[in-house]
C-alpha cells in the first residue's frame, strides 16, 4: 500500500511538469474576450463617469478564466480610448471599473456583487448561468456551440448606460423591453 502511494505521488509530480508545456487550446474564452472589447465599443457611459479620451477600465472580478488572453489586451485602443485590464478581488475596487467581468468563481456571492455595483454605471458581464435574468447587464450564454449574449435593458437603464441598437439587435434575449 505504502509503495502504491509513493508511486501515485511521483505520478502527480510528473503530471505537474506535463502541464507546464500543455497549453489550453484557443476557444470559448478568446471569443468572450472579443465580446468584451465589442461591448466597450457599443455601450455609452455617462460623461462624468467616463470623460472622452479617458482610459476605459476593464476588470475581472474573481479568478481569471481567460488564461492571459484578456491581460494581453491591456493597452489596446477602442473607440479612441485606451483599455486597461486588471484583476480585482473586492466589490469596492470593481465599482471603479467601467466593465466588470464577474468570474464564475464568484457565483455564490453574485447577489452581493450585483447589489454593490448597482447604480454605479458599471457594465457587468458574466457567463454565470442566468446572469442577465439575475440583474446583471449582459450574460454570455453558450448555446448550439456558439457564444451568444442576453442583455438586461432594465439594468442598463437603471445604471445610466446606453446600449447601441446594434448591440440590442444581436442579443439573444433582451430583458426588460416591452413589445416584440
Amino acid at each position, binding site marked *: 500500500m505504502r509503495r*502504491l*502511494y509513493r508511486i*501515485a*505521488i511521483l*505520478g*502527480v509530480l510528473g*503530471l*505537474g511538469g506535463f*502541464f507546464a508545456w*500543455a*497549453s*489550453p*487550446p484557443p*476557444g*470559448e*474564452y*478568446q*471569443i468572450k*474576450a*472579443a465580446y468584451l*472589447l*465589442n461591448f466597450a465599443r*457599443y455601450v455609452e457611459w455617462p460623461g462624468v463617469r467616463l470623460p472622452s479620451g479617458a482610459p476605459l477600465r476593464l476588470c475581472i472580478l474573481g*479568478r*481569471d*478564466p481567460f488564461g*492571459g*488572453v484578456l*491581460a*494581453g489586451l491591456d493597452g489596446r485602443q477602442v473607440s479612441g480610448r485606451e483599455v486597461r485590464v486588471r*484583476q480585482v*478581488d*473586492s*466589490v469596492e475596487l470593481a465599482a471603479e471599473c467601467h466593465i466588470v467581468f464577474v468570474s*464564475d*468563481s464568484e*457565483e455564490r*456571492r453574485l*447577489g*452581493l456583487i450585483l*447589489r*454593490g455595483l448597482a447604480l454605479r454605471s458599471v457594465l457587468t458581464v458574466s457567463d*454565470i*448561468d*442566468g446572469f442577465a*435574468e*439575475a*440583474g446583471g447587464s449582459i450574460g454570455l450564454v*453558450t448555446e*448550439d*456551440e*456558439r*457564444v*451568444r449574449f442576453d442583455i438586461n435593458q*432594465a439594468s442598463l437603464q437603471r445604471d445610466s448606460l446606453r446600449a447601441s441598437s*446594434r*448591440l440590442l439587435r*444581436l442579443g439573444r434575449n433582451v*430583458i*426588460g423591453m416591452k413589445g416584440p
Partner: protein
Amino acid sequence: MCAAEPPLVDLTLEELVRLDVSAVSRKAQKLSETPAAVTVLSAEDIRRSGARSVPEALREVPGVNVAQIGGGRWAVSVRGLGGRFANKLLVQIDGRSVYSPLFSGVFWEALDVMLEDVERIEVIRGPGASLWGANAVNGVINIVTRKATATRDSLVSASMDDQGRAVTAVRQGIDLDGIGALRVYAKGSELERSRSVDGKSERDRNHGWLAGFRMDGAGSGVDAWMLQGASYRRTTTENIETPAVGGYGGLVPLQFEFEGASLTGRYNWGLADGEASLQVYLDHQWANVATYGKGTVNTADLDFQHRLVPSGRHEVMWGLGSRYIQTEIQATTEVLSILPPRREYRVMSAFVQDEITLVPQTWRLTLGGRFDYASTSRLEPQPTARLMWTPTLADSLWTSWSRAARTPSIGESDATILFGLQPTPPGSPFPAVAVVSKPGAGWSPRAERLDALELGYRRNLGNGSFEAVLFHHDYRRLISETTGPIGPGVIPIPVAPYYAPVQSMYRGNLSAARSTGLELGLDLPVTANLRLQASYTLMDTAARRSADPVRNAYGRILEGSAPHHWASLHTLVNLGRGRELDLMLRRMGAIGQGGVPAYTSVDLRYGWRVNRSFELALVGQNLFDPLHLEYVSNFFPGQPAYQPRRAYVQGVWRF
C-alpha cells in the same frame, strides 16, 4: 506569456455571434476557490457521459464509487464505507434533502430527475457538515437544476434500449410576461433488467413516472425567487435469496412501491448590505414493501442564510435552520417490525462561517461550525478549519480539519429485523437459528462521529483542471451489532421441529474505523477537438478489531465495502459538423464484501447534432464484457445482479 495576439479580438459583433466554438466543454470552475475537494459536473459533462441517471453521471468523479445492484438500484458512496444505503452521504436536489431518515440513505431506485434540465451536479468529498448539516459526513451531492428563465423552449427526449424499454421526457417552457418563467415537465421510464449469473433475464423491474414544475422570477431587481414542485411514483421488483434450510428457500420476488411529492420555495434578497436567502420545503414520501410494511415520512424544512458584507479581512456567513420530520411506519411482521410506529423529530440548527484573508490573494483561512440539536440525540458541534494557499493564479494548496456527525436512523434506533436463518452444524437440536437484529437493551443512540484531515492541490489549466487530494478519516461511535442473548421468542420454519430459536444481535455505538486515501482528477484539453478526463482513487479502510465475532464481521463489511482502487478515462473527440465520439474506460478493483471480482468496462457514445433542434446519440455500454457483477446488495440478501452488454439510442428535440 501571450506573444501572438489572437486575431479573434478584431472580429465584429456580427461575426462573433455566428462563430462556432470548438470543444465547448467549459468545466464549471465555480467552486475552484473553495478549500475543499469539489468536482462540478456541468450539463455538458453529463450529456457526454451518456448517463441516463444521476449515479451513472457520477461514475467518473474521483473518490466516488458507483456500482449497479440491479435495474435502477445503485450503491453510491464517497470515500468508502458505502453500500446500498451509503449512510454517510447527503444528497440534495435544489436544496431539498433526499436522504431518507428511515434507513439513513438514498433510495436511488426511487430517485428520478430530468437530466436534460440539470445545470450541474456538485460533488463535495469529505465532511461538508459545517455548511450542509448532519449526515454530510463523507460527502455531499448537490443536484442543481436550471432556472426556468433558462429553459424557455420545448423539449422532447426519447430513448430506447436493446431490450425495447423506453424512457420518454417532455418539458415545456412558458414565459410569464413581466413575472418570470415557468417550465412544466413529465417523464416516464422503464429501466433495463439485469441478468442472473447464467445470463438469463432477471425479474428486477423498475418503472415509474415523474412530473413537476419550476418557476423563477426575472427582472432587473436583485431580489430573486424560485418555486418548484415534483411528484413521482416508482415500482421496483427484486429477487431475495433465502438460504435453503431443509430444502426450503430460494428466490422470492419482493416488490417495492414508492410515491412522493415535494414543494420548495426560495427567496433571495438584500439584507443589511449583505445577501440573505430563505428556503422552505415540504416533502412527503410513501413506501410499501410487499406485505412486510409500509411507511410515510413527512418533512417540513425552513432554512435561513445570511452572507454579511465583507468587512476588513472577514467575510462572515451565518444561518439558522429548523426541520420537522414525522414518520409513521406499519411494520409488525417477524421479518421487520418497527416500534413505536409513529415518531416525531425536531432538529434546530445554526451555523457560522468566517472566511479570513490573512494575506490578500495568497493566504486564506476559513473557520466554521455547525450546531445541530435534534430532539432525539444530543447537541452535535461540527467544526471545521480550512487553510488555503494560492501562490500563483493557477495553483492552490489547501488543508483542512473537520468533524462531522451522522444521526441514527429510525431503522437503527427502532427496528427489529430478521437477517435470515443460519443453518446449524449437524447434530444440533434445531436445523437453524434465526438471526435477529434489534436495538441493544438500554441503548440510547448517539450520532456517529468523523474527524477528517485533508490535503489538496488544484491547478487551473485554463479550460481544464487537475486535482489531487489526500485524506484521512477517523470514525468513532459507528453503529454496529454485537452478539446478544438467545431469545426471546422463536421463528416458525417449515421443517421439523417447525420453529427456530432466535439469536439476538444488539445494536449500539460500538465500532470504530479509519480510512486513508488519495484522489486524483484531471480534465485536460489536448487540442481544440480532443479532451481527456481521468480520475483515480486509492483507498484503504481498517476497522478496529474486537473479541466479539459479530462486531468483527461488521468491521470486515466496512473494510470490504469499496474497492481499494478504481480509475476512469474518458476521451472526448469532436469529429466536426456536430459529430462527437466518447470513449469511456473504467477499471474497478475487487470488492471484498460479497466477493465481487475486479472488472474493466468500455462504453462508447456517438453523438450527432443533426441540426439546431435535433440531436441523436447512440450509446453502447460494457462493450467487451458479456456479463459482470458490480455489487452484491448488503442490505437485503438480493440475488446477485449481473450487468450485460447494453445499447440505447436517444433523440432530443428542442423547439
